[in-house]
């Protein structure tokens, strides 16, 4: 089994500790995405797996073998870099063949493998070109070709799509997913783009400030964020977060935000008077009355039509609230919105002090 295991990994630059003891186990053939804001330690973690950065403390194992002191070339990993890292003086063929040439593979083997790989990636017509004569997407494909040509145990991707424009990014994302299905290789993928993380990952690791905030499948993170950070990071637009105070009454648990009362799910564990953060996804609000939903009077500031959907920028007092709603082809009726309806079972509650989720689940 060619999994990757990280046990209490620390990384310090001088006196500055940037990764604070993270634990992570990537299963064989799994696609794990490390996601987080810049400077959260995700790239450093990836580079430690690759062997490009030393590990200050902890253990990394690949395929059950500890690799702390193993040189990158002997770890049997391949890495795709953000800026592609293609050799400008070499043609596409030689770029893809580089790793094989370094390993002194036979000419026939190189020709055969490169031909296979370029066929998979649709690069066959471009083998005679230099990287400068390729488009961004093609360069990205060459970079991936260089990685897969060696049949490594583990693929490492360091923000491989960040240099592409939005349209190409969507296209390449699908291509990476297709490639992973086809090759079934263990992959660790770093990105700061939560959409990329959601669409590609079997499991997502949300990192912040050198800590892992939460590990889970994309839908787990979306429906049950462990804390306010994950709640605000996963989902676009992010989850609305409003500070409120708990009011436990005979007819259920409620939270008050600026005199507006939210009815909360029953199963949450809160005390009367507890300071909390109410979380509500933009798409979970309704603009028409729903049974058992709290009614929230808001003032509407702006309507942003996106096509089939529209974003309503509203506010309760000084707190902004973004709502995503279906347009059904028209937005005129949206400018009259004065009340939102929040179904109790879709409200998330976080402790105001620790930021940890207080809801068990929405189900």
């Amino acid at each position: 089994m060619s999994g990757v295991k990280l046990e209490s990994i620390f990384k310090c630059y001088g006196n500055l500790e940037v990764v604070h003891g993270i634990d992570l186990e990537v299963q064989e053939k799994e696609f794990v995405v490390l996601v987080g804001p810049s400077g959260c330690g995700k790239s450093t973690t990836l580079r430690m797996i690759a062997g490009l950065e030393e590990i200050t403390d902890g253990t990394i194992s690949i395929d059950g073998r500890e690799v702390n002191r193993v040189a990158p070339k002997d770890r049997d990993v391949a890495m795709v870099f953000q800026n592609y890292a293609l050799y400008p003086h070499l043609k596409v063929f030689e770029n893809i063949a580089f790793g094989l040439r370094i390993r002194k593979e036979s000419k026939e083997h190189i020709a055969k493998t490169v031909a296979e790989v370029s066929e998979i990636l649709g690069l066959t017509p471009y083998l005679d070109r230099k990287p400068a004569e390729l488009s961004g997407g093609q360069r990205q494909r060459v970079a991936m070709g260089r990685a897969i040509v060696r049949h490594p145990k583990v693929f490492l991707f360091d923000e491989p799509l960040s240099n592409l424009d939005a349209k190409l990014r969507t296209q390449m994302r699908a291509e990476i997913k297709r490639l992973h299905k086809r090759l079934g290789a263990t992959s660790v993928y770093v990105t700061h783009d939560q959409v990329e993380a959601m669409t590609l990952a079997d499991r997502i690791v949300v990192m912040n400030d050198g800590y892992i905030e939460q590990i889970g499948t994309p839908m787990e993170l979306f429906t049950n964020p462990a804390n306010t950070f994950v709640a605000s990071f996963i989902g676009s637009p992010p989850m609305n977060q409003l500070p409120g105070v708990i009011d436990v009454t005979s007819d259920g648990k409620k939270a008050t935000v600026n005199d507006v009362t939210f009815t909360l799910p029953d199963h949450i564990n809160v005390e009367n008077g507890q300071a909390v953060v109410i979380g509500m996804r933009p798409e979970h609000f309704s603009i028409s009355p729903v049974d058992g939903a709290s009614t929230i009077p808001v003032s509407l500031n702006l309507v942003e039509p996106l096509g089939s959907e529209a974003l309503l920028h509203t506010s309760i007092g000084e707190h902004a609230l973004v709502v995503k709603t279906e347009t059904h082809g028209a937005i005129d009726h949206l400018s009259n919105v004065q009340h939102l309806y929040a179904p109790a079972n879709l409200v998330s509650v976080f402790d105001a002090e620790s930021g940890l989720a207080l809801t068990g689940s929405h189900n």
Partner: protein
Amino acid sequence: MSTSSDNGSVNAGPGKGGQNTPSRHHANHGKRVAVVRSKRTLKQKLQWLSDHVRNEWQLYLMLLPTIVWFMVFLYKPMYGLQIAFKDYSIFRGVAASPWVGLEHFELLFTNDQFVRAFWNTIKISALNLLFAFPAPIILALMFNEILHATYKRAAQTIVYLPHFISSVIIAGIVITAFSPSVGVVNTVLSWFGIDSIYFLTKPEWFRPIFIGTGIWQEAGFGSIVFLAAIAGVSPSLYESAVVDGASRWQMMWKITLPSILPTIIIMLIIRIGNIMEVSFELIILLYQPATYSTADVVNTFVYRQGLQSGQYDFAAAAGLFNAVVAFVMVIIANTLARRYSKTSLW
């Protein structure tokens, strides 16, 4: 041609960001329309130039000292080149001296000393190209492999130092080092029972000593250019190669060298262009009549004929010939570089 694209070529100018003031935009507006229809007339070109200079005068001001320097020290003296075709006399002056056509050149090519100096120049330059040109590249590659930052800085400073020492002192050091009585070289040789050799009077030793001295003096400083080129190589190329399993040696051959090749070619063109310019100062300081047979080059020949013997017209002809050969060499080198490596000075 659309008006908007022409706007780019007129307003922004070649390579200058179009950060124009609003008033300039306005002033240009009328002209822009006229330019669309036909090629610019001379008047329009001059108008464009004056607008351009007014707009970017700070840049031109910074350029000015260099232009003045070129004018005073390189272009104005060119007026005097005509004495190569004249029977020049200081008393008559440049303009009043009578023309003699190619007489000086005929004399030159039949002059054994000049022919010898010409071939010496070529030989010394060729040896320089062979040994002294690669030295800074090798040095830069070696510096690049030093991982310890302090040690690297110290080593670099040490090899840069000779560049900042005057050639007179450098020559003094060399003469002392190779002296038959007190020189360190002969002292070392005597340990092995070898008799003292008076190196600087031996024609066969002049070229090795001269080229070695040149390397010692300039290789370190010359490596700066290549180190800068190496610094420009994206670190991810190396990281990617490390993951692929490349050794440091392989990375040097397969990444560093190809990446700095354009810089090497540019430096080579410049070097070939200067093939007739061996470092005249150092030769004057190191040679003596005993070594003229290998050491005398065109520049030293010109110096002796012109300034020491007062044959200004003859020396000017020799100098002019030298310059023409150098000019042709630059053009050839640049054309070849452009054709085969797509890198060139112009």
